[in-house]
């Protein structure tokens, strides 16, 4: 039988980051994916590091991620296109101002420096912004990277350090004996390991359920687009006018936002990720936010399916029942969180403990979650934009 110290289920950025740190530490690590590495959310994300400024319980892990991001290219040996150029939230028109003020109040809960700025200052940071932008919140902290290159950088670096990635190898069972994890089942045979990490993105709940562990998540399909390349216009990671947007190193504007459909996923099938006509409205928002670029072509769109936890905070825990099972779900901001989340997983896998701040991110916080939480939120499959 194949054996490993640690089997990781899911070769998205979380599994690959965990695998990288484990391989670097000398562990025998195997990352399995039902499809190809890094073809789901991780390569479809916008590429921001969310600082979780409104979540004091989660911000410390984001700040740890930021420190790792700042030297990640050297660490991995491959480019991620990370740029620590700050973040900017803008209000386009009066109706967005209240939301901005509320966000700013929320941001005061952590020690991260955020500044409330006026429209003029927003346009100094990003001159292409519409004159209708009336204010913003700025922080020089954080930034953005290229999701496709970053996930690939983790994959290459993991292999350079002796880790293995096995693609098209779905996990269909988790073996437990005497309260301890002993390995995973796949159609191509079992792999034994004393530690199994569930980092299966949208399928995290389904995979964890194989070990009778309930991880509460709802899954949702989101759409994103890019324009043709433009000369450099702005370098902050921006939120405003109904969009999240960044300009890539190549010059394309990469943006997403808008209504989304709650969906169902299967354990081993690739979820359908169709685009819908809403991408026209998404495009309209970019033309409104930056009227000077309305003649630039929209080049491509795509969609991604991701999992959301009930409080939209990361779940990261090494369980004691069954012992050796680690679950990780980053609830829609896993791209930015990946360096520190992966490092925490690697430490938990090797030492049962981690120096990283994850105390508040365990599953016990959901012990009083009502069984019908998805229905109450209208987060059930088929629901749109609620």
């Amino acid at each position, binding site marked *: 039988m194949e054996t490993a110290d640690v089997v990781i289920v899911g070769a998205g950025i979380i599994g690959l980051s965990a695998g990288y740190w484990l391989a670097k530490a000398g562990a025998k690590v195997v990352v399995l994916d039902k499809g190809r590495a890094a073809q789901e959310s991780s390569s479809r994300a916008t590429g921001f590091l969310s600082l979780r400024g409104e979540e004091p319980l989660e911000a410390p892990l984001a700040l740890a991620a930021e420190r790792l991001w700042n030297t990640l290219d050297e660490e991995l040996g491959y480019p991620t296109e990370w740029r620590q150029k700050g973040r900017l939230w803008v209000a386009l028109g009066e109706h967005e101002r209240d939301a901005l003020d509320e966000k700013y109040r929320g941001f005061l809960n952590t020690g991260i420096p955020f500044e409330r700025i006026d429209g003029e200052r927003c346009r100094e940071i990003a001159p292409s912004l519409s004159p209708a932008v009336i204010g913003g919140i700025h922080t020089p902290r954080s930034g953005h990277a290229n999701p496709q290159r970053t996930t690939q950088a983790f994959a290459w670096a993991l292999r350079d350090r002796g880790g293995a990635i096995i693609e098209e190898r779905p996990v269909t069972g988790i073996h437990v004996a005497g309260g301890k994890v002993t390995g995973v089942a796949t159609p191509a045979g079992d792999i034994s390991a004393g530690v199994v990490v569930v980092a299966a993105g949208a399928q995290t709940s389904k995979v964890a359920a194989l070990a009778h562990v309930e991880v509460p998540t709802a899954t949702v399909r989101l759409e994103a687009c890019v324009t043709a390349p433009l000369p450099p216009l702005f370098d902050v990671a921006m939120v405003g006018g109904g969009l999240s947007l960044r300009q890539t190193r190549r010059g394309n504007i990469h943006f997403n936002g808008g*209504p989304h459909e709650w969906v169902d996923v299967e354990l081993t099938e690739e979820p359908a990720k169709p685009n*819908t006509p809403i991408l026209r409205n998404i495009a309209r928002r970019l033309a409104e936010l930056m009227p000077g670029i309305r003649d630039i072509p929209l080049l491509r769109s795509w969609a991604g399916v991701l999992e959301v936890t009930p409080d939209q905070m990361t779940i990261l825990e090494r369980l004691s029942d069954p012992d050796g099972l680690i679950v990780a779900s980053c609830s829609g901001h896993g791209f930015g969180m990946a360096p520190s989340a992966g490092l925490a997983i690697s430490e938990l896998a090797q030492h049962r403990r981690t120096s990283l701040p994850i105390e508040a991110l365990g599953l016990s916080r959901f012990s009083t979650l009502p069984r019908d939480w998805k229905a109450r939120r209208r987060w059930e499959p088929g629901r749109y934009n609620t």
Partner: protein
Amino acid sequence: MSEASKKVMVIGAGPAGCAAALAAAGYGLDVTLVDEHPQAVSAMSLDAPYFYGSRLAPVLSNDGEIADRVLGANEGLMECLDAGVEVLVGTSAWGVFRSGPNSRHLAGDQVGVADRERSWMLPFDYLVIASGARDLVLSFPGWELPGVLGVMGASMLLRSYEALGGRSLLILGSGNAALAFARDALSAGLTIAGIAEPAPQVQGDAALARELEEAGARFYLGHTIQRALGEGSVSGARLAGHDGSDRPGQTIDVPCDTICLAFGMVPNVELPAVAGCAIGFDPARSGWAPMVDANMETTLPGIFVVGDAAGVSEAGCLDSAGAVAQAHRAAASIAMREGLRAAPADAPPRPTASAATHFPPDLWLSSLTASGGMDVLVCQCEEVSRRDLVTVAPPAYLRASEKIAPDAVTMLTVNGHPSQDSLKRLTRAGMGHCQGKRCREHSAMLLARAAGVDLADVVTGSYRIPVRPIPLGVIAPADESAQMRADWPVWLHPVAEETGH
């Protein structure tokens, strides 16, 4: 037309699309026919749907004149108008949307269309995709010069836009498309400077080849192109003998002002692909083509693909009768389903391997690589060379400093299937403004070679909406509802009360 009549959308007003629209209208169905011609110069400059190249004659900016020429050249379209078909010209279809798994909120099936000013959605009950073929492009030094273009682009400019902009043509390839184009060019009074072909014999119809030879066209058999000659525009071509080895043979310079690529044509499958129709590799149909049944219906009920879009053949390059038969069959099948016709139409001929075009053009690629080397660009938009592609080199804006992953092509290959999407994401080949139309097949062929697998085993790159690059201000809807504006979420809604919000 009765209120209750089902809506049939036809995309593409070539022989197949016009025949489908006309037949469907004849059954009393409510038909809308959409075609992107006449195109704006800005759209042509993106090399969609054909490889027009960068020599776009000034007259192409004269919209009124061009509209007269293009519409006047399309008899089928005029017949459709007379038959009461709603005809939308200068209108491209950029997406097909279906209510289905994970898009259940969509009310019905619809096509996204756009003209130069605006975009809108057209609902349909049946969709007939007759989007034709596009040029299969391979490259050689100088291929970015004005005056280099694909045979389909050239044929369209010659016959429809009357704006080819050259007089002396070198044609690369000797299949039926190459020969038919040479024939059309001669009868338009142009000169054929030569027809080059790396194989030792003419690939297309022998009688037509003889006819051309008698009219003075010279065939350079056993020859490939080493480079396009000229400063600022094409003034000639340097041909090199090709004997099947890696070493280019004797060279010969052929003066010409236009170099026309007739390496091959592939079905234009972007729309069936984004709709979610199954697409399969089939050399008998010249590449990746939609899977269709005898009615030309795809794996998605109600969506049909007919004509060159369903497969390109050598015979079809000389005669559109097969394309028209497919269109009639599809229209009859729709009519039968709606109770407007009792029996099916005659079955259209099935593609056979013997009627296939010479796909993939392996000999062309080998000879072009032997004579042009590995540093020729594959992707003009993102400046990716053959070497960059097979070494999975980082894109130009990163290159100088970056290390290349060892054995990267092997890592893109899982169970014998290399992924073109992975290659695209890492090298950016195919991610530029032509949306991969100039490099898709070239890149897939190089990937197959580098991975040591058959082309059939390449997991071909995905197609993305919009299948034409459309300005933000055009694709944006003018009629957005106040409700949508009020409810628009930037990201997932923040968590509200347990009871919902």
